[in-house]
């Protein structure tokens, strides 16, 4: 393997790796990441920030649940341990419903429903139960509703970032995205992405690639174009990226063949962009694991 070949982890892979225990993930995901050297395992800032946003949402809802179900009831301090346990058990048993209620009532459109955020929020709650029984109301209020909360959150996330940094390189070459030169190949890539989004919409799909996904795609292209990496394997858990990649490649082929650019003005840029994009490989994590076993 050449030195400049790297594996980039999509946000969904970060989740599978860091929360493998909670999600009952195949340990092979972790083994695969462990098998990479620090230089080979790369995470873009954008993905890390996306990952942290998910934790942030989940932790905020956990706080809201505790605030509404425990802190708003003034008698928490007066309850005996058995009664406290009963309250906690009630919340735990109905956590999914409580989560949805709070989300619909207060965070409509601000936080996505169910999914990973809900699973994390419930885990945070369960793991905090011991502290909820131990602490007095005053201390809890500081941690859950007042200024201690942000410190707690920063502490938690810095623990996680530390784990990630031990295994992987966190890449921030954001200046690549703000290059003042007009890069004609980039124009073609954006055209390809727009085409992909139009196709999805005309086929009736509502879920189109997020702005972040589009930036990540262009980012990977620029990393290859700038020869910062010779080959990039982007590891993900769904086929959004692969389809985007294919549509862009097809768009470039149309230009090269003269179907989309009759005068051939952009042919040479399309050829270059096509050569570069062929060094990008989009892989599902399960394929990689299967491949490794062979």
């Amino acid at each position, binding site marked *: 393997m050449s030195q400049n070949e790297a594996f980039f982890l999509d946000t969904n892979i970060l989740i599978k790796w860091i929360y493998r225990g*909670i999600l009952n993930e195949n340990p092979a995901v972790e083994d695969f990441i462990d098998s990479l050297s620090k230089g080979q395992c790369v995470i873009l800032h954008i993905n890390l920030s996306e990952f942290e*946003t998910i934790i942030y949402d989940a932790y905020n809802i956990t706080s809201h649940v505790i605030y509404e179900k425990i802190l708003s009831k003034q008698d928490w301090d007066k309850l005996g341990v058995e009664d406290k346990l009963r309250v906690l058990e009630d919340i735990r048993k109905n956590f999914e419903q409580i989560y949805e209620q709070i989300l619909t009532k207060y965070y409509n459109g601000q936080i996505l429903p169910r999914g990973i955020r809900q699973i994390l929020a419930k885990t945070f709650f369960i793991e905090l139960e011991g502290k909820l029984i131990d602490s007095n109301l005053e201390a809890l209020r500081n941690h859950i509703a007042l200024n*201690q909360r942000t410190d707690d959150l920063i*502490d938690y*996330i810095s623990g996680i*970032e530390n784990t990630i940094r031990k295994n992987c390189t966190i890449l921030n070459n954001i200046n690549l995205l703000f290059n003042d030169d007009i890069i004609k190949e980039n124009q073609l890539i954006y055209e390809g992405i727009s085409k992909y989004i139009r196709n999805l919409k005309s086929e009736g799909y509502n879920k189109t690639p997020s702005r972040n996904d589009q930036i990540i795609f262009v980012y990977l292209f620029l990393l290859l174009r700038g020869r910062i990496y010779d080959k990039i394997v982007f590891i993900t858990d769904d086929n959004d990226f692969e389809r985007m990649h294919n549509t862009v490649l097809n768009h470039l082929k149309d230009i090269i063949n003269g179907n989309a650019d009759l005068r051939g003005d952009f042919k040479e840029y399309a050829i270059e962009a096509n050569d570069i994009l062929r060094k990008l490989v989009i892989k599902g994590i399960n394929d990689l694991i299967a491949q490794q076993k062979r």
Partner: protein
Amino acid sequence: MSADLSLPLEEYYKVPNEMKNRNFPVHLLEKMRDYLVKQYEENLFEIYEGMLMLILNPEDEDKLKILLKEAEKIKEDFELYNSMLENNTTIGEYVNMVMKELQKLIDGLKKNEEEFYKEVLNSDNPNFLITTYYSLYLRFVTTVYLKLHKTNITKPNIKTKDSRIKDIFNITNFLVGFFGTPILIYIKKKEVFPYISELSGALLHALVADRTPMPSKDSLGYYLFSKIHVVKNESK
């Protein structure tokens, strides 16, 4: 409370009083500031808000064009203002001015912090995203202030416009306004900015990157981290 709080945020960009010395054309500058404030008071806020929405979800191309045009107009006006400021101050004075405004902003935010949390949580619409954002913003501004405080100004007496370190202070001014907007939106309209999670993710990431983990026994964050990620891994 809300009125108290919007003051330090909104006054951040005002002309320094300390500049009333020597040949400094403070009357001109003040006239200009008044004009700009009147011209853009409402508008500037709208544009910031629009920029925040667009940068995170720039799908609306027409809106983007209008905003860019507006922003361009404002930029020209402010550039004139800035160039007057940068031509008539030394970098030492300029830095002093930014630092003083930052101090006032931090003190104002800090003073209102607990009150803000209580007001939000006791309202009909308690929302933890905005309270967390408030404290992330406060920590961010404080971190920036502490960093800038260490800036070594070797030649405090050269004109601001000729100084290379003015850029970092310019960016600070921009970021303070930019990230402060969701709080102003909340105070003025009682609305939570729809992309607040994404912005918080960015602030959080910036704050974490700046920090070396230091376990404290009081921290629920470390408690959670060790329970979920350390203990379970060791026993696997």
